[in-house]
């Protein structure tokens, strides 16, 4: 059950230009968070960046009772967050949202992530007890590659692409994913990132009859399912309805979601 928490910053490091990793001390999140869940963060005091910002739980450390979030500066909220001082407290609500399904039935898994979408996938890889785990991560360029080490350790094989070819494959990460699919026969693919990438992964997965979970983003108000602003289209029989990313998601089965 989610709670309002004031948690202390144990560490704050710059991983790449505009990308920061924040480690927070929090027994509750560290012990109870499931992969794919997020925290809703008050990035600054008072009126500045009034609303909370949703940030995925990237990593939990049950032994030290800490967890990590990794975020990219997009606007004022993430900017303020990056300026916090180690030792100060952050007001968060969490763990929130519907997690990835990582039960034992899936033996071979793949994660496909792009940009800020890669962060929840690390936690997923670590939590999964699958026999084989592949990670496909797309970045804009070499400079923005983060957590390579962590993903290497958490997966059996790591594939990287960059838009400009400055590292790994030049082009789309889905190019690499498609290449592996026949060889690997994944039981499930999990994906998070820009909508065009997600759509492509879903298309590939469906074509290859691989189950697929997607983690979506939407602007949020309450983050807990009450205000109904974070709508996303989902199937309801032959019709559709607006579900809500914060509560029904962020993780959905790919065949539930309607992209348009």
């Amino acid at each position, binding site marked *: 059950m989610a709670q309002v928490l004031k948690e202390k910053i144990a560490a704050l490091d710059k991983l790449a230009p505009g990308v920061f990793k924040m480690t927070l001390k929090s027994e509750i999140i560290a012990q109870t968070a499931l992969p794919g869940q997020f925290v809703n963060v008050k990035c600054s005091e008072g*009126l500045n960046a009034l609303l909370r910002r949703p940030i995925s739980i990237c990593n939990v450390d049950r032994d030290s009772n800490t967890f990590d979030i990794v975020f990219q500066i997009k606007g004022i909220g993430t900017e303020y967050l990056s300026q916090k001082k180690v030792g100060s407290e952050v007001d968060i609500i969490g763990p929130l949202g519907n997690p990835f399904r990582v039960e034992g039935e899936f033996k071979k898994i793949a994660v496909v992530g792009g940009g800020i979408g890669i962060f929840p996938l690390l936690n997923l890889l670590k939590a999964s007890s699958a026999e084989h785990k592949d990670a496909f991560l797309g970045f804009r360029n070499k400079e923005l590659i983060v957590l390579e080490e962590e993903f290497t350790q958490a997966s059996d094989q790591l594939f990287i692409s960059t838009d400009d070819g400055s590292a790994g494959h030049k082009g789309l990460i889905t190019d690499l994913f498609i290449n592996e699919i026949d060889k690997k026969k994944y039981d499930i693919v999990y994906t998070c990132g820009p909508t065009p990438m997600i759509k492509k992964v879903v298309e590939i997965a469906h074509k290859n009859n691989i189950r697929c979970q997607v983690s979506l983003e939407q*602007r949020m108000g*309450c983050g807990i399912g009450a205000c*109904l602003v*974070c*709508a996303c289209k989902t199937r309801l029989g032959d019709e559709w309805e*607006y579900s809500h990313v914060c509560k029904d998601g962020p993780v959905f089965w790919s065949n539930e979601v309607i992209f348009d």
Partner: protein
Amino acid sequence: MNNNVDLSVNIAGLKLKNPVIAASGTFGFGREYAEYMDLNKLGGISVKGLTLKPRQGNKPPRIAETPAGILNSVGLQNPGVEAFIKEEIPFLRQYNLGIIANIAGNTIEDYCEMAEILGDADIDAIELNVSCPNVKAGGIAFGTSCAGISEITKRVKAYCKKPLIVKLTPNVTDIKETAKAAEDSGADAVSLINTILGMAIDIHRRKPILANNMGGLSGPAVKPVAVRMVYEVSKTVKIPVIGMGGITTGEDAIEFLLAGAAAVMVGTANFVNPAACLDVIHGMEAYLRQYHIGCVSEIVGKLELNQ
């Protein structure tokens, strides 16, 4: 210190143990917040705006942050009045709090039919939302003219067995006039303000942030406008006024009470702080204790103007 501050209020027959009501559209049907607070502590809840049939609402994005405020364009996503009666009232009735059904429609007939259906439901009041800026037909169209308010209030009142609260829009030249129109047409109380129409632009995409282009502004930013309007209206009508707009703390709520509000609603603040309503109640109580005021209703309208 005197621990017996009497916070109870009676708004045209709607009896609440304290004057703090969760504002419509910001608190769902209470379920989600039950995880974060004891709903028994709330004065009341005005539920998410209901329509006759279920509605999916507007396309996302439905929210944009603005300085000290937010724009929303939810567009009345709700399960419809029947589902509300069947599924939500029984849940809410487990708690000791006032239940206000906030209703909206495309036509006057919609509103009347809802009032009729709700006539036998276990609710404590109806709030007539004639001020939603986020739907094309109905909503705000009724709320910006005195004639519109009059007609809809009169007709709904005929079907209404519970106290009828008319929710006013701030998007008018003179809110005293629309408030008077509501009073004269049979409203038992008025609530204000609904959101102020606004727009926020993504300068990189060169498009409005909201898929609906425009939305309603709420949150701390609107507080001074809301306080002014509550003052104007409470000096104009004799029926009780429920004040809202940017309330975040007990002090904010006291401003509204002094300005003439018999009760307050808390909206946007719930998003930032899920326990905002409780904080408002406690802050209010602390203020009353500080000034040895035994009963919250004693300060309603006690603002003294500067000469």
